[in-house]
């Protein structure tokens, strides 16, 4: 029983980090038709910035989270304004361009922060554990779960209940029509891109304290968030959240029961979903 609860909580915290990343990719693709493969690299940059503020310089953890998010957000802003503008609906070119950014950001990160793995850390504010009944669980992980769920609700509210969300959804369905209604979709796109990149960097910092940081993260975490998107389906916050939690749970139970094979359970989950529901469990269209 204790094992099951702990694994579920581990899976949930991991899954929510994957959700934050995948939700950004889904949102950006939805609004702008841009497949940003460099999202994982933005996560990694955020994680490194946060790591050097919180661990190297020993400053406040929330400052690190904010700065990690801002660093990724600003990088995303530059990428969007300078490069992606001109590549709407050209999937070939987007893939290669964003992959180029993965190379650049990863190599620059190695240059700045070194190639070695930086171990996970616990911020002093989040040290200690909760004791409920016979269970103890680290506060740091509980915080990640809380933050993840709050952002999930926030994104859902933003996308389904606000005017901005209505514009975003309209843009997903028909970009030209939305623009012809006099809506400044360019501005909305930039804002959405910044938000997505900010959340990626933000997730990087809170993820780094659970999993550490390394340069290979930019591809590894991207791969996992893509599996999340395949499982959950693009377009809805709920779908991505479901995908994230399922993958986090699969990973946590897999690692606890069959450590050597954990990776393969994730692929297996993806293949099963593709066989049954190719558009994802809750995919739009």
């Amino acid at each position, binding site marked *: 029983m204790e094992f099951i609860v702990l694994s579920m909580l581990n899976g949930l915290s991991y899954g929510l980090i994957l959700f934050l990343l995948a939700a950004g990719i889904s949102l950006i693709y939805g609004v702008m038709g841009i497949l940003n493969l460099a999202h994982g690299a933005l996560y990694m940059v955020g994680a490194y910035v946060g790591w050097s503020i919180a661990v190297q310089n020993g400053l406040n953890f929330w400052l690190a989270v904010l700065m990690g998010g801002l660093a990724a957000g600003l990088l995303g802003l530059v990428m969007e304004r300078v490069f992606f503008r001109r590549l709407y609906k050209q999937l070939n070119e987007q893939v290669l361009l964003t*992959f180029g950014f993965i*190379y650049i950001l990863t190599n620059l990160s190695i240059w700045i922060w070194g190639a070695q793995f930086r171990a996970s850390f616990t911020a002093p504010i989040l040290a200690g554990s909760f004791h409920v009944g016979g269970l103890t669980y680290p506060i740091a992980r509980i915080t990640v779960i809380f933050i993840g769920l709050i952002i999930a609700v926030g994104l859902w509210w933003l996308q389904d209940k606000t005017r901005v969300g209505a514009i975003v959804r309209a843009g997903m369905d028909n970009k030209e029509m939305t623009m012809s209604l006099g809506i400044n979709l360019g501005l909305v796109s930039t804002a959405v891109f910044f938000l997505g990149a900010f959340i990626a960097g933000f997730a990087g910092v809170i993820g780094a304290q659970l999993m550490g940081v390394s340069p290979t993260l930019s591809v590894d975490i991207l791969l996992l968030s*893509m*599996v999340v998107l395949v499982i959950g389906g693009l377009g809805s916050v709920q779908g991505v959240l479901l995908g994230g939690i399922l993958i986090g749970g699969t990973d946590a139970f897999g690692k606890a029961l069959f450590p050597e094979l954990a990776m393969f359970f994730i692929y297996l989950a993806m293949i099963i979903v593709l*066989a049954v529901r190719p558009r994802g469990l809750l995919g739009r269209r």
Partner: protein
Amino acid sequence: METTNLKSITRLWPGQLVRFVPYIASGVILILLPSFLPSYMQSMMTKILIFAIFAMSLDLIMGYTGLISLGHAAYFGVGGYTVGALMVHYDINMLWISAPVGILMAALIAAVFGLIALRVTGFYFIFVTMALGQLLFSIAFKWEWLSTMDVEAIVGIPRPDIGLPWFTWSSISFYYFVFLAFVVCFFLLNRLVNSPFGYALQGIRDSEPRMRVLGYNTWLYRYIAFVVAGVFAGVAGVLFAYHNSIVVPTHLSIITSALVMFMVILGGTGTLYGPVIGAAVIIPLEFYAGIVTPERWPLILGSAFVLSIMYARAGIGVYLSRLWNRVAYRYGSVKG
């Protein structure tokens, strides 16, 4: 058009022949040039031709069928790993056995992965192909059977035994062997894309619903193209294992997939000469960057990705072919 006289026919001929000049010229260069080069350059040209086969195979699905795969290195790596495993575990190095088995394995994996990946298209297809490629990468990384001497790689693959006891390989003879394979692959792929089947693929690329309405089984066409591309990638992988003598998990991974995709886009998608030109640009760049600044190579490569997408999006090959058409047109009309 109705009145065909002798004069207009003779006028046509130089124009028709002129079309083949680039092929003849590059053929002559590829045959003659290596004999005058030092052996490391011969080896580099061998690698260019191998990656040209690999890039052409990706272009068959990317440029002609419209399926963007970020996991194409899987079939390349499987070909190479099969050759390596046959050598290490079964002591088989006979070309007539190890090459066909390597290609067959690549085809089998492509046939299985195609069934999974072609459940979806577009955006999802990129994800699934990438994930499947990374799956093989992690298998190769973790499975000790595919490692030699405590490194996650198969090392020491010799050039193949072709069954003639008096024959020994040199870098130039291996180059001509690869060149022969390249010519055969180019010819076959050229026939394929200019066949009714190839036109159907291009129709699917441009408008899948229309082709479906016309009665084509578009899924099957895509699937066959996917497997055929896997076969040619397997050919390249087998040759690369012989050439490189080491196969590492990275040869299966997204790093290699993205590199070969870059060759296709840089050269020009939807042409067969484009990927060849892409390979001919990237491989030397990689070679010299590897000498000058190996640790910054990813940075250079990434910048090259970004710059070429921003400034040479149609592909170098397409620019060159336009240039050539202009020259040929002028030549043809003056000669008239």
